[in-house]
């Protein structure tokens, strides 16, 4: 406690700073929060020295380097409440897609094999910086996480509710239902998918359920709370809020959904095989928290 205020630290791991922006996006509500909460450490927003202890530590970003791992473990001892903010910290997020390949392949692709790179000697940068970990992890796998707020970026309303709960001592809970529940295109009637279409190539009807049109929309297997913001903006749900309560693997359940809604007269198995990059589109934000946590790598028989 600092002058009777709650002390707050916002610690970046491997992040794009979008989650910090969500906090700043609270706008005039920040003034109200400032009466109760003191942000003492937030390297992305302001310059200050790390304190020895805080009440709430908010983590943004995925655990991509060994430095991130160390940070999480150190701050767990320094804080009373540890919060994972954003898809990366709670589910793995976009950096988690690195689990589909290995660090060696990744570095080789970027510094040697990339078509825009001329590197005949095949040298890779050798700097004294934190090393990439072989498998991107989520915070829950390393330490006890008290609150998780998913979303890429997390919805403003949820962040606001969380701060209010911290100030008033109330309970903070994520919504349990799926995005379809909040979706303006959901008519509540039985959905039938009669064609498989590809986003960006086929024309879109903005007033008809995207799944019914044949686009891959992850609404049915994604947690609500975002008020279907992507669909309202004319874009299919990509699943950034993670699976709702009761679902562990977003991709498996989306496959189940596709199996349930395809029209058996008009769609053959071959049509489904045309869907490109299945693991990338169904696990876009949740690969490190999925059943297998990434690509299955065989141990060499030694």
């Amino acid at each position, binding site marked *: 406690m600092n002058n009777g205020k709650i002390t707050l630290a916002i610690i970046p791991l491997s992040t794009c700073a979008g989650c910090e922006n969500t906090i700043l996006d609270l706008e005039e509500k920040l003034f109200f929060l400032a009466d109760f909460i003191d942000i003492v450490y937030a390297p992305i927003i302001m310059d200050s020295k790390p304190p020895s202890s805080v009440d709430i530590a908010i983590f943004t970003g995925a655990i991509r380097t060994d430095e991130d791992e160390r940070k999480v473990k150190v701050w767990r001892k320094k804080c009373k409440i540890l919060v994972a903010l954003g898809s990366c910290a709670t589910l793995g997020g976009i950096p988690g897609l690195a689990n*589909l390949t290995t660090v060696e392949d990744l570095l080789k692709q970027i510094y040697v094999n990339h078509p825009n790179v001329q590197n005949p000697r095949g040298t890779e940068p050798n700097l004294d910086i934190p090393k990439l970990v072989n498998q991107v992890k989520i915070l829950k796998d390393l330490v006890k996480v008290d609150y998780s707020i998913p979303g890429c970026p997390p919805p403003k309303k949820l962040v606001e509710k969380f701060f209010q709960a911290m100030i008033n001592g109330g309970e903070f809970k994520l919504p349990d239902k799926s995005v379809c529940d909040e979706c303006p295109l959901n008519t509540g009637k039985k959905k039938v998918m009669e064609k498989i279409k590809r986003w960006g190539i086929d024309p879109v009807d903005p007033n008809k359920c995207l799944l019914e049109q044949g686009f891959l929309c992850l609404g049915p297997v994604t947690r609500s709370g975002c008020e279907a913001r992507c669909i309202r903006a004319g874009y299919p749900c990509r699943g950034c809020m993670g699976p709702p309560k009761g679902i562990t*693997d977003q991709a*498996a359940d989306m*496959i189940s959904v596709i199996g349930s809604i395809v029209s058996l007269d008009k769609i053959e198995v071959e049509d489904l095989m045309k869907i490109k990059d299945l*693991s990338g589109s*169904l696990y876009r934000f949740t690969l490190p928290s999925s059943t*297998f946590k990434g*690509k299955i790598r065989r141990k060499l028989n030694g």
Partner: protein
Amino acid sequence: MREDSPRNRGMFNPKIIGFLCNWCGYAAADLAGNLRLNYPSNLRIIKVMCSGRIDPSHILEAFKKGADGVLIVGCHPGDCHYINGNYRAKMRIALLKKLLQEIGLEPERLRIDWASAGEGERFANIVREFFEEIRNLGPNPVKEECDE
């Protein structure tokens, strides 16, 4: 062919989970038993009401918990007790196989086949074939991966 029979001693003994539908697959397994047909005892049978009831997450969970292969036996196309459950299962399994391939697990570890209630012999053959295939593929690499 018991798991610990002299023939099998020292060889890789796969664990195979079988999801059999109540109306055809399970009835076929029942018939195979009544006919005293021999098939590998490595198959652990789970009876479900329809092959369309099997959620892909059940299959992923089976692999995660250490199953070396997952076999699904439903009614022949057109014969589903619930009109089209087996067609839906076929769609889901095809997609799931593609996903498994992408994340690095051999899609051959997952098989969907059909056997009617009268085809005990066919069922035994399916299990024998699948058993040999899994034995050639070797142990499932997922379990150790997930335990670390």
